[in-house]
């Protein structure tokens, strides 16, 4: 049963892939630590460069996954040291992380967060190893109708769980799906929404899309903080560099519980690191905050979200690898990256491309060890990244974005398109949208349409096929329940309490 893993370690331990895991971990941590650049931005900016290296699919995926997990590590730096979360997933880390830094315990706080990230990620990777092949075996039975229902469920779950405003999340996803329909329709050859522009015939390129949406809009957004000198005011002193074993042991159950919570939440489509961090923090607060020390620099309050958000990062690989449904915005980007290699992740990947599935999982084990080894002694060095002023950072992102897009086809049309998408992304963010649903919609939309049309051509146009099997019916019911319950439950609750 674990043949794929043994095979995977063979792949991941090759000198090239080992080097890439190391490079990715390092770059990811650095990019994650940069102010304003979370995991998704880091991957968006670095992905085109990964392509220019001409790597085989499994190596590229290993590099990108290492960047992803590395960026989750790096994101905690600004949370702890500056009280500025690098991305949504790191918000809970600020609650106890920053008070610890103010007490002069910044060094141990960074060390503890590295250890809890490691523990959380390890729990989740073990979960991934055990759980993914099982899920893949179930998913092999999925036909197009089941996949269509699964995607409906994924979008429903995302609308409810991701972002503050379900309506806007849903709109963002629809917009993403619409952007994905641009270009030639693969089954009829009809051109859709290309407006006679040959540059659009192949659709809107994935790299152009993510760089525009994330990197360019981030540049525009950073302008608002251009005059805020958050990094330059000086970092708090790190204090002693290592966290003591006693401090780690005091948090062992917190880490274990939070790792499990994070893993489970990571599996659900649409619920990423931010939900995992919040749920684990509130759970720990309820379970172990006996003296009301949470929020004032309690080590456990730091360990909980850190273990959970790294666990959810690994957990989100479960649906991506087995069902081809990404669990988070970042895995959506990774999924898109795989599709550029003509690999559609799904249940068959464990049997047909074991070097990709197994290699990735094995490299997560290795990358996680590398990250711990890098982050414990080098926290001080990484922390210095925070002091890079925005006037160096922004032009750097601009150059990376331009080169990344230009090298695709050596033409300028892609660069103009990237700028347009960047403005679009900026407007969406200003209007209170989160961008993860847009990218999920963009990546999943094409697959959704394909599966819908495949299902209906099997049935000869009879819509009934979409909910004929038990699996698809169950998924439809679950999707409807997800959409209706959050709205219905409070009302029922109210009705009952008002009666009593």
């Amino acid at each position, binding site marked *: 049963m674990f043949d794929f893993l043994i095979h995977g370690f063979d792949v991941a331990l090759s000198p090239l892939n080992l080097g890439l895991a190391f490079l990715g971990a390092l770059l990811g941590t650095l990019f994650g630590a940069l102010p304003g650049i979370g995991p998704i931005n880091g991957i968006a900016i670095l992905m085109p460069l990964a392509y220019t290296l001409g790597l085989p699919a499994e190596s590229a995926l290993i590099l990108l996954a290492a960047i992803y997990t590395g960026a989750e590590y790096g994101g905690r730096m600004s949370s702890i040291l500056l009280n500025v979360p690098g991305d949504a997933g790191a918000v809970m880390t600020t609650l106890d992380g920053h008070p610890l830094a103010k007490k002069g315990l910044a060094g141990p706080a960074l060390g503890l967060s590295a250890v809890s990230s490691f523990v959380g990620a390890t729990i989740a990777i073990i979960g991934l190893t055990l759980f993914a092949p099982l899920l893949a075996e179930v998913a092999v039975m999925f036909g197009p109708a089941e996949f269509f229902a699964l995607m409906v469920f994924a979008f429903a779950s995302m609308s409810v769980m991701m972002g503050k405003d379900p309506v806007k999340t849903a709109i963002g996803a629809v917009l993403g799906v619409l952007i994905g329909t641009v270009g030639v329709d693969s089954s009829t050859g009809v051109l859709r929404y290309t407006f006679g522009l040959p540059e659009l015939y192949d659709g809107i390129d994935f790299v152009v899309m993510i760089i525009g949406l994330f990197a360019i809009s981030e540049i525009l957004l950073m302008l608002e903080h251009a005059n805020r000198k958050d990094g330059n005011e000086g970092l708090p002193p790190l204090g002693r560099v290592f966290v003591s074993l006693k401090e780690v042991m005091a948090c062992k159950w917190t880490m274990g519980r939070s790792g499990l919570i994070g893993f489970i939440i990571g599996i659900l489509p649409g619920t990423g690191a931010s939900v995992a961090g919040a749920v684990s923090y509130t759970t720990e607060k309820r379970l172990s905050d006996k003296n009301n020390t949470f929020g004032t620099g309690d080590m456990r309050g730091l360990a909980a979200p850190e273990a959970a958000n790294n666990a959810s990062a690994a957990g989100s690989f479960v649906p991506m690898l087995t069902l081809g449904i990404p669990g988070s915005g970042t895995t959506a980007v990774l999924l898109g990256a795989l599709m550029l290699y003509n690999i559609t992740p799904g249940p068959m990947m464990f049997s047909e491309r074991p070097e990709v599935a197994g290699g990735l999982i094995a490299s997560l084990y290795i990358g996680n060890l590398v990250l711990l080894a890098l982050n414990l002694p080098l926290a001080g060095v990484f922390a210095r990244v925070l002091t890079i002023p925005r006037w160096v950072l922004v*032009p750097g992102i601009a150059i990376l974005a331009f080169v990344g897009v230009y090298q695709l086809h050596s033409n300028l049309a892609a660069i103009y398109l990237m700028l347009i998408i960047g403005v679009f992304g900026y407007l969406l963010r200003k209007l209170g949208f989160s961008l993860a649903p847009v990218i999920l919609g963009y990546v999943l939309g094409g697959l959704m349409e394909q599966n819908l049309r495949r299902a209906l051509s099997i049935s000869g146009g009879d819509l009934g096929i979409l909910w004929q099997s038990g699996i698809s019916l169950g998924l439809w019911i679950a999707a409807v329940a997800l959409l209706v319950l959050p709205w219905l439950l409070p009302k029922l609750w109210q009705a009952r309490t008002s009666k009593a």
Partner: protein
Amino acid sequence: MKLAADRLLGIVLIGLAAFVAVQAMQLEVPFSYDPVGPRAFPLGLAILLAALASVLIVKPGTNEAWPGRQLGVKLLLVLATLLVYALLFTKLGFIITSLLAVTSLARMFGAPWGKALLTGGLMAVVSYYLFAHALGISLPSGYWIEPLL
């Protein structure tokens, strides 16, 4: 009704949905064995989008603060810089345009002239060697420089 940004957005989105639907209807579909065809999916999306946008009009959500005039001007300046960077990218070549773009971006993000120029020069040259030589990406060297080489 208060005119919230979300209401305006809702109206724009309904317009977009109508546009998407009209465009989809105008697609000329050749005969195929595919009972759904390329129209249905975008049409369905348009309906869904219009429905969601109506919800937004009835119940607008919250927005981030919009930039004031000063910030707006800066925003346009940054965009203009990026656009000019793109326009001149192949004409003047990577090194010169990057030098110009990096220097002006650095200025806009608050660097003093000296540091901005230094950043521009260093970044342009270092990234050119990194990308063109170490990674083998072909970057435009510029029409003007070719006769000189």
